[in-house]
């Protein structure tokens, strides 16, 4: 039986033989672009950052001056989100609150990166007693509710302020990063390219930060993106309980706490920060999920 000649489509004939070579980051960006939820989240977060930046130089009204509007004023054209129990403009306070949230989220992750990544790299690369000690510390920290640790730390550190809050939150979050980096390092250190660089006489620091770290970067970025909302939520919790950012600096958490008291007569006071907080947390979570899918397509949730 004679084989039928197979008709080759014209576009395949013209196409190059190999798939176009793209780097990890270009590839990840392409995959992320296809994730509509992550894109919407990125747009929202970009706007939020812009609002926070604008709030540095300009807010519609002063955030600490009382009585710029009638107390409990409902939303109006002069005050789009109304005014709170002291007659302060809620939109202005929300804008500065965005600043606080973002600063806490980003700075906490910066501290977590600075502490967790080196610890994880060293423990995973050298193993032995360093690894045993680190793993023990991680398991101890996981056993105690983080909010209690943070609250005690704020008490011990004395006078509350943004820096204390960042330290306290980072102290309850560093082990996520250390554990992740350690795990990545444990599997990467057995790969040939690490052996090759060791054989060619590279210094340990060069191996750790020049070879291991760049290859573990994907999961670390995802962890940071998911760590930011966790830190923001944490700050909101603390401020809500009255142990966070000291007044009159507006934080979404303390704004919600103030609003709870007057929920009966003016629900908009509590709803504005609560909705802003929920949207922001959701956006970071969607972006984090999207990044995870984009950076590591093999891993399924």
């Amino acid at each position, binding site marked *: 039986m004679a084989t039928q000649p197979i008709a080759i489509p014209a576009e395949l004939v013209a196409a190059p033989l190999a798939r176009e070579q793209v780097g990890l980051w270009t590839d990840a960006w392409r995959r992320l672009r296809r994730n509509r939820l992550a894109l919407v989240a990125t747009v929202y977060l970009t706007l939020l950052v812009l609002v926070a930046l604008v709030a540095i130089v300009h807010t519609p009204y002063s955030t600490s001056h009382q009585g710029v509007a009638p107390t409990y004023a409902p939303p109006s054209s002069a005050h789009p989100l109304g005014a709170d129990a002291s007659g302060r403009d809620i939109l202005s306070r929300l804008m500065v609150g965005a600043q606080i949230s973002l600063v806490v989220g980003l700075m906490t992750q910066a501290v977590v990166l600075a502490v967790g990544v080196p610890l994880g790299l060293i423990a995973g690369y050298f193993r032995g007693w360093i690894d045993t000690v680190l793993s023990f510390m991680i398991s101890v920290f*996981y056993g105690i509710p983080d909010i209690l640790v943070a*609250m005690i730390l704020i008490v011990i550190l004395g006078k509350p302020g943004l820096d204390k809050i960042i330290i306290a939150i980072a102290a309850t979050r560093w082990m996520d990063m250390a554990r992740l980096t350690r795990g990545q390092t444990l599997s990467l250190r057995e790969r040939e390219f690490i052996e090759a660089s060791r054989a060619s006489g590279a210094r340990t620091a060069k191996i750790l930060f020049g070879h291991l770290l760049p290859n573990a970067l994907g999961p670390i970025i995802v962890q940071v993106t998911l760590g930011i909302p966790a830190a923001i939520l944490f700050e909101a919790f603390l401020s809500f309980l009255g142990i966070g950012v000291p007044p009159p600096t507006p934080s979404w958490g303390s704004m919600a706490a103030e609003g*709870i008291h007057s929920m009966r007569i003016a629900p908009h006071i509590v709803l504005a920060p609560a909705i802003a907080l929920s949207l922001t947390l959701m956006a970071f979570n969607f972006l984090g999920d999207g990044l995870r899918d984009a950076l590591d397509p093999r891993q399924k949730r």
Partner: protein
Amino acid sequence: MTGTLAYVGQRTLLIAFTALAVSSIVFIGIHQLPGDAFVSERLRPSQQAALLHQFGLDRPLLVQYRDFISNLVLRGDLGESIQSRGTKITPLVLREATVSAEVGGAALVFTIGLGLMFGVFGAMRQNSWIDYLLTTLSVVGYSMPSFVIATFLLLVFGIWLENLTGGSFFYGIGWTGTYGNLAEISVPAFALGFPYASFVARLTRASMLEIIRQDYIRTARAKGLVEQIVIIRHALRNALIPVITILGPLVIGIITGSVVIENIFGIPGLGKEFVTSILNRDYNITVGVFTGYAALIGLANLAVDLLYPVLDPRIRY
């Protein structure tokens, strides 16, 4: 049986040691700032010194610590409140721990019950509109902080429901007596459990989807069993295993969340006392509540571990 008893004894000892270690760290940390306890009272220096002396806060830290530990170990005595003088802390913490355990237990029932129900429903009707609805709801639930959920619940049950029924039926903040009643517990327990219920639902849905495609489920159906029995007795039992593995972190999460929820709903538990004591700088209570928390978490984890062999007969101690 004796194996289990020995295991429980061993674990209880470990819990006691952990609680002791945790309270030691907190005690020493907090007593770095002895004068702070009376800052809000605006006392003259001589009066403050007298008060510090009365509570033994002017002695060397190590002496204070030695007394604290020996009182705690020998008599289970956590000392006295600094602010409301004469109040013993041990009975206070014990009572509040049972209140917190009550709310946490109710939240756990909501978490597991709702989570399993949503998860199984979603898996049974995979890719239907109800599945999409439940999946979306669980993402939303997981992203919403518990105090936001609590706020919405208060708005709905406390205010809109009151307006709707002309003030005859609504949910108020705070509750009657020490332990409240069933209606009063349900709303905070729901707020506390909902975020974790979404998590359980996601997990259950995924593991159910995997299991209902297995051969033994087909066998069960082929035997002619009713669908409900296949799902509940055969599929769900095995789908439970991943859910069981997250019970430990779940319990810790619920205890963490209870700090906020108790403060919103005015529940007289450990979480409310903890925040109040920090705001009042009543550090003796802070140390006591922390010790109570360490014990509560240890006991909750022990209960979870004892549950494993009941649900999964392959595990034995």
